[in-house]
C-alpha cells in the first residue's frame, strides 16, 4: 500500500536543478483519439459500428470485419492484470531518471490486451481498473489502478507524474480578490497545498470575504496586476522559482455587445487583462516554470487558465468579453505547446456563466465560485487538460461538437 506523502524538505540549492525530460511523445494520427479522450478525463477505445469489436492499439480499420466505421467509444475500464514487471533499465532519459518503473499486461473485460503503467497498489494476477491519462509529454498512456481506491493512492510517486495534484505544492493565484479567486484559495488550502501566493491588484480596494483568505496560514498576499509588467517582475523575483502551479484567475468583464459601445475602451480593458495579461504572465513566469519541470518531488507541473465556454462561440450578451477570452484561448494553445517540452500541463477551464455580479442578469443555472474552484482542483488531481464545468458548459460543448454553426445561431437568439 502506498505510504502517505510527506511534506518535501526544503530544496538544497547546491546541486544543479535537473533539466526536464519527457517520455516519447510521437504518435500516429489515429492514436491521438486516446489523447483527445484522456485530455478530458474520459476512457475511450475504438469500437466498430458494424460488428461491435473493441480494439487497441488504435488503427484505421476494424481488425475483425475490416469496416472503416470505427469510433472512439466509452468502454468498461475493468480488466485483469495478467502479468507485470518492473523495469530497472530504460533507453529513455525520462524513465532512466525514475527507475524502477512498473509495467503490466492487462486483459480488459471489453476485449483487448493493453500494455499499461501499473500503480504500486495493484496486486499481480488480480482485477484492476485501467484508465488513460496524459503523461508528461502530453500524450495519453494506459495506467492500471487497483480495482478499488486504496488509502493515499494518489500519493504514489509515479502516479504523481501523470497528474498535477496540488498536495504539498505551491500555487500562485493571480487574482485572489474576486469571488472565484477566493474560492480557489480556500479549495487549494483544503487540497493540501503547502503555500498559496495570492495576487491582489489595487490593494486599496477592499473585497468582501478577502480578509478570511488573507488570514489563512498557507497564504502569502502579494501585490500583482496582470496589466502591470513591473508588478509581475517583482512577484517573479520574489517567489517565481517556488511556483509549482499557476492559476490565472484575473478577469475583466464589462458585459457588452459590440454595438453597445461608441468606443473600444471596454474592449481594450478586457484585452489588457484577459489576453495581454496572460501573455505577460506567460513571458515572465513561463520560462521560470519550464526550468523547473523536473525539480525534485514538487516540480513545476501545471498552468491553469480560467477561460469561458464562450471562448469557443461568441455569446453576444458578453460579445467583447467573449472575444478577449477567445484570444486567450488561442494563446493558451500556443503556451501549451511551449510548456509541454518541460512536461508542464496547461489546463484550460471553460465554465458557463458564473454566479457573480457580472452575470446578474443571466438566468440560472449558473456556476457558483465554489463549484468552479472544485472543478479546477479536480482537474489538477485527475490530470486532465480541458474542463467544461457545470451544466451550461457541458450542454454547450456537446452542442458545439455536433454543429458549431447551430450554436452560433442559438446563442444569438438567447441574447
Amino acid at each position, binding site marked *: 500500500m502506498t505510504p502517505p506523502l510527506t511534506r518535501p524538505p526544503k530544496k538544497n540549492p547546491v546541486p544543479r536543478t535537473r533539466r526536464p525530460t519527457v517520455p516519447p511523445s510521437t504518435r500516429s494520427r489515429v492514436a491521438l483519439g486516446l489523447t483527445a479522450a484522456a485530455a478530458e478525463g474520459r476512457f475511450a477505445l475504438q469500437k466498430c459500428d458494424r460488428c461491435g469489436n473493441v480494439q487497441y492499439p488504435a488503427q484505421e480499420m476494424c481488425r475483425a470485419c475490416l469496416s472503416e466505421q470505427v469510433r472512439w467509444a466509452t468502454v468498461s475500464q475493468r480488466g485483469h492484470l495478467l502479468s507485470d514487471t518492473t*523495469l*530497472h533499465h530504460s533507453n529513455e532519459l525520462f524513465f532512466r531518471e525514475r527507475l524502477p518503473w512498473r509495467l503490466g499486461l492487462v486483459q480488459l473485460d471489453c476485449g483487448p490486451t493493453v500494455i499499461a503503467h501499473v500503480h504500486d497498489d495493484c496486486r499481480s494476477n488480480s482485477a484492476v481498473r485501467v484508465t488513460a491519462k496524459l503523461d508528461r509529454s502530453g500524450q495519453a498512456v494506459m495506467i492500471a489502478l487497483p480495482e478499488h481506491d486504496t488509502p493515499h493512492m494518489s500519493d504514489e510517486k509515479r502516479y504523481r507524474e501523470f497528474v498535477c495534484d496540488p498536495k504539498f505544492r505551491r500555487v500562485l493565484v493571480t487574482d485572489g480578490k474576486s469571488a472565484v479567486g477566493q474560492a480557489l484559495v480556500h479549495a487549494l488550502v483544503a487540497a493540501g497545498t503547502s503555500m498559496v501566493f495570492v495576487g491582489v491588484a489595487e490593494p486599496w480596494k477592499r473585497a468582501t470575504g478577502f480578509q478570511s483568505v488573507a488570514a489563512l496560514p498557507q497564504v502569502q498576499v502579494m501585490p500583482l496586476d496582470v496589466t502591470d509588467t513591473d508588478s509581475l517582475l517583482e512577484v517573479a523575483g520574489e517567489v517565481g522559482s517556488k511556483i509549482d502551479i499557476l492559476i490565472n484567475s484575473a478577469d475583466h468583464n464589462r458585459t457588452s455587445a459590440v454595438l453597445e459601445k461608441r468606443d473600444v475602451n471596454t474592449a481594450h480593458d478586457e484585452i489588457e487583462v484577459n489576453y495581454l495579461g496572460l501573455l505577460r504572465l506567460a513571458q515572465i513566469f513561463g520560462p521560470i516554470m519550464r526550468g523547473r519541470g523536473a525539480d525534485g518531488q514538487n516540480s513545476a507541473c501545471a498552468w491553469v487558465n480560467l477561460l469561458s465556454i464562450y471562448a469557443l462561440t461568441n455569446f453576444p450578451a458578453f460579445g467583447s468579453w467573449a472575444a478577449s477570452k477567445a484570444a486567450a484561448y488561442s494563446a493558451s494553445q500556443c503556451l501549451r505547446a511551449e510548456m509541454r517540452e518541460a512536461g508542464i500541463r496547461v489546463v484550460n477551464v471553460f465554465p458557463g456563466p458564473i454566479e457573480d455580479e457580472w452575470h446578474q442578469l443571466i438566468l440560472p443555472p449558473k456556476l457558483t465560485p465554489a463549484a468552479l474552484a472544485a472543478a479546477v482542483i479536480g482537474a489538477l488531481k485527475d490530470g486532465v487538460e480541458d474542463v467544461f464545468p457545470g451544466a451550461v458548459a457541458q450542454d454547450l460543448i456537446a452542442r458545439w461538437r455536433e454543429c458549431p454553426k447551430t450554436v452560433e445561431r442559438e446563442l444569438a437568439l438567447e441574447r
Partner: protein
Amino acid sequence: MRKPYHDVVAAVPVTIPYVRYSTRSAHWWIARALEALLQESGFSKDTIDGFCVSSFTLAPDTAVGLAQQLGVSPRWLDHIPMGGACGLVALRRAARAVQAGDADVVACIAGDTNHIDTFRLNLGSFSQFARDATYPYGAGGPNATFALLTSYYMREYGFSREDFGKLCLAFRENALKFSGALMTRPLTMDEYLGSRVICEPLGLYDCVMPCAGADAFLVLGRERAEDAGIPYARILGTIERTNAFPEDPIQARGGWARDCAELYAMSGLGPDDMDFVQLYDDYPVVVVQQLEDCGFCPKGECRDFVRQHTFEAGGSFPINTSGGQLSVGQAGAAGGYLGLVEAIRQLSGRPHGAAVDDAAAGFVSGFGMVSYDRGLCTSAAILASGSA
C-alpha cells in the same frame, strides 16, 4: 499434400564475425557476406541469379538499391521483413524459386550494423503499434514483453530462474567453442543469478546483446551443388506463420503450435529423430516455448524437460550448438539466420565450433517481430545431412 523440396539444397553457411558496435553500414556487412559466399562456393557474381535480403538498418535502401551497390543482376529478388523468422522464410521461398526454375542459385543474406544509437532509434520506429502503445512506456524494446511472459511462465508452470539459467549456461558453453561469439567467458549460475536486473524477472544474461554482423547461405539445385563439389544440407520440410492465435490474451504459445504437425508430416520425421535443435533465443522463455510448441515436450511440462536434459553440443538434447544469440549476439535480422546457418554447418559436415557427432537431421525455428505485445512471425524447418 505439399510438394517436397526434392533436389533443392542449402549450402555454404557463412557467418561474418559479429562486433558489438560497428562504424560500417548494413550495406558493408551484407557485402562481406556475399563476398564470403562467392569465395567459399567458387561461384562468380554472375552465377548468383537470385538475391534475398533481410535487414533492419538498410534504410533508405532495400534489396533493390543493394543490388546496384553489389553489382549483381538477379532475375529473382526478395526482401523479407520478418526479423527473427526471416532465415527460414528466405530458405523456403528461395527453395521454391529454384525448384520452379525462376532462379538457379539464390544468395540469402541477413546483415545489420549497430551504431551507438541504432538500437534506441529502431525501438521507437519499429512499428506503428510500438510507437503508439509500447515505446512510450519506457521499456527497452522487447525486454518488457518477454519479462511479462517469463513471469507468467514462472507463475503458471513453476519455472525458477535457475531453469532459465540452465539454458543460458549451456548455450554459453557451446559459444566458447565458436570463434564468432561475442561472449567469450564461461557463465556460472551464480553470475547468472547475481547479474544486474534489467526488467524483473529478467537479468542481464537473459537478454540478447544487440550487435553488428551478417549471416548467409546459398540455395541451389542439388546437382549443381554436387557438380561444384559443395557440401550441402537437404530441406525436408518448412513452415511459416504470421499472427497466429491473435485471440490469446498473452502469447503463451507461438505459431509453431499450429503448424508443427504439418512440418513433421512433410518431413517424414518426428521430434525424436532430431540430432540437434537450433531455437530462436532472444530470451530463454522463448526457447521454452519452442520446445513445447514444436513438440519436444508437452505444454506445461517443459520445466521438467529442462531439468532432465543437458543442452550442450555433447549433451542429451543439444540446443544452439554455436551458442545462440544469447551468447553470440543479436546482429539484427542476422539473428534470424544464426541457427539456420549453424544447422547447415552441422549437417554439411563442417561445424565451426562444437560438433554434434553423426548429425543426420536437425530442427531449426525462428521467431520475430514484436510489433506490439507479442512476436508475430514464426517459422521452422527440418534439414537433413546431404549424405543420408
